[in-house]
């Protein structure tokens, strides 16, 4: 146990889990005490979703070092397939929680499968080129969603790319209706499920990072040629990170889709991908706990600033710039480090004198 504790990575991971669990407990207590307004209650599930998305993208961008601008596309696959699945399973699995889990897993698997298919051509590219391909892929998916018609009736599920292609029997239901998107969705998503999703995402990503595979992935990121020369199969490991990331994004997407009563394809556009990327970059590339915190704060910030009306847009941008400067500018970083050092020095001096006992 002591040995575990002394490992810096393990300690950091435990802190990440603890942070999420404490936050969950605190929010649950606040919910029980009726301390949250309608707006705050409305944030709970999307915050969980964006945390999972940020963590899964961090695996790709931070750990694997591949810039992906199509994360919203995977989220969209998960969302729409999750919605379709939840309707199809309505009679088979009457239990809401089980149906939600089944839909999320289905959404994840489908997104993972698409991740694999797209990874085959896309992962031959690197850096900027990969970013462009994933961006294009996200846009293609968005257009596919907005032309996809899915309906279900007694005979089963029907797919089509034109409105007339789906002819439903009496009592049938349109699930996805082209540009209208999905409407009349039964909201299955709950905050505890969002919490479980975060824990699952953290579990998968943190374990992957600290495994043999994770070290190989990091080796590829740091020096591809050196990694190849020691016999690491570069494509296979990059693919692994890509598919896992897509799978987790798909699960988060399914939860997202089932949290709203209607969903349109335009939600999964370039802006959403960039938003998630902003969470990752601000939280720190490769820093999982940072992603969790930045996704939470940056999602709630513009909503909490609603009172400021249009000025909130400016303030949000200012916050982004300030955070970037504080975390990445060497000058400010140096100043913070010097300040920290002086404080520790004072504290240790105090300790020696036997005045302070905090540390």
């Amino acid at each position: 146990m002591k040995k575990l504790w002394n490992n810096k990575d393990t300690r950091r991971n435990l802190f990440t889990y603890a942070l999420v669990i404490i936050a969950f407990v605190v929010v649950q207590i606040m919910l029980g005490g009726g301390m949250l307004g309608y707006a705050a209650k409305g944030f709970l599930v999307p915050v969980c979703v964006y945390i999972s998305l940020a963590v899964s993208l961090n695996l790709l961008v931070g750990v694997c070092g591949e810039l992906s601008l199509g994360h919203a596309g995977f989220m969209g696959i998960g969302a729409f397939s999750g919605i379709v699945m939840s309707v199809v399973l309505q009679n088979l699995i009457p239990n809401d929680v089980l149906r939600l889990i089944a839909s999320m897993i289905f959404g994840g698997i489908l997104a993972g499968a698409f991740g694999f298919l797209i990874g085959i051509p896309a992962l031959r590219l690197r850096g900027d080129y990969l970013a462009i391909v994933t961006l294009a892929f996200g846009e293609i998916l968005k257009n596919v969603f907005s032309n996809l018609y899915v309906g279900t009736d007694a005979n089963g599920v029907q797919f089509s790319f034109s409105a007339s292609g789906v002819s439903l029997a009496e009592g049938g239901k349109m699930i996805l209706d082209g540009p209208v998107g999905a409407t009349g969705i039964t909201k299955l998503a709950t905050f505890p499920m969002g919490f479980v999703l975060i824990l699952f995402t953290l579990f998968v990503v943190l374990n992957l990072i600290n495994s043999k595979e994770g070290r190989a992935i990091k080796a590829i990121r740091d020096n591809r040629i050196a990694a190849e020369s020691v016999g690491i199969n570069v494509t296979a490991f990059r693919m692994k990170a890509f598919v896992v990331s897509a799978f987790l994004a798909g699960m988060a997407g399914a939860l997202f889709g089932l949290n709203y009563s209607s969903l349109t394809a335009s939600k999964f556009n370039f802006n959403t991908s960039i938003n998630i990327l902003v969470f990752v970059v601000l939280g720190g590339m490769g820093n999982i706990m940072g992603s969790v915190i930045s996704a939470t704060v940056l999602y709630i910030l513009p909503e909490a600033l609603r009172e400021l009306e249009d000025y909130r847009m400016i303030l949000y941008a200012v916050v982004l710039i300030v955070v970037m400067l504080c975390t990445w500018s060497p000058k400010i970083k140096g100043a913070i480090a010097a300040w920290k050092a002086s404080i520790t020095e004072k504290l240790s001096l105090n300790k020696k004198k036997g005045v302070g006992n905090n540390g």
Partner: protein
Amino acid sequence: MKKLLAMVLTVVMAVSVFAGCQPAANNAADANTLKIGMTGPLTGGAAVYGTAVEAGMKIAVAEINAAAEKNGGLKIEFKSQDDEHDNEKATNAYNALKDWGMQIFAGAVTTGPCLAIAPSTVSDNMFMMTPSGSSDKIALTGNNIFQMCFTDPNQGSSAAQLVFDKKLGEKIGVIYDNSDDYSKGLLNGFKTKATELGMTIVEETSFTADNKSDLSTQVNQCKDAGCDFIFLPIYATEASQILTYANKIGYAPKFFGCDGMDGVLTIDGFDAKLAEGLMLMTPFNPDAAESKAFVDQYKAMMNDTVPNQFAADGYDVIYSIYNACVALSINGETPADEVCAKLVDYFKTYKFDGLTGSGMTWDANGMISKIPAAVVIADGKYQAL
């Protein structure tokens, strides 16, 4: 230990951010002020509609509050929230309004956010009246939801009827936005009615939100098909491109738009002369005598912009709700669900006269019935067709 401290601080910070969104303590109800909330795209690509509705509503609120004494002193407290034309943001905006203590919801402006919020209003028992959300699915979501504008299929079908009655064209072409629900709804209504009346649509061509920067191909397709009448169930910005290009290649069929075409005369960088002869269906005519007071106030408020039908719809929504509340003696202390039950009942037999029509009534679904009016642009002004 430092890590632990950092973590605790983070949790405190996250919680305080949440706490910032708590319902304000000072939202206590006041008997003399009715709280009406609205969401709409006040920023972003669809902001032109949201800000128009917001301004129309604000004018109505100011008028009502100035003359409140006549109606037993009942005033309106109005609050608008930005939804950025995004379903997720719309849900958040609606929740923020509920925290504020909203009694009646006068939104949303665009169809997507309307559909996102509508089921919540049903479960909250919140009276909802959208000024401009035109999909027929909105009103069908629940019986607490009403619309001030026509539904898309209804409007499309009355457009077809009008074209038939006035013999506007033989060979009909259609250019529509395939990625837009509004456009497709109109098209379906138009096509159904046109087929019924035996009209021939010779060319049907489309674009999407992503490739609408150049619409010359679509215009050429219609020209090649020899269309003498083109139905444009699209918004004014795209239509202005079509008109400009058609003029450039010397192609002059009759163009016919729906209410989204309203505002075509005020588009930046568009020569309004090219819109001469354009026909459109709009319930609101800013050049009519009875609109003058409203138009003047709107111009004073919005840098001389002429109000479009969105603004007029917003104005009518506030007045229709307020008049009903006065008649039902609903006040600021009536809880939202009671307001909803009373208003829903009242609107079944309600007859309202406003800027966008007189003698408006609502059917059991909450869809409006008013006389569809069409205008033709002549000398830069709307004239009844």
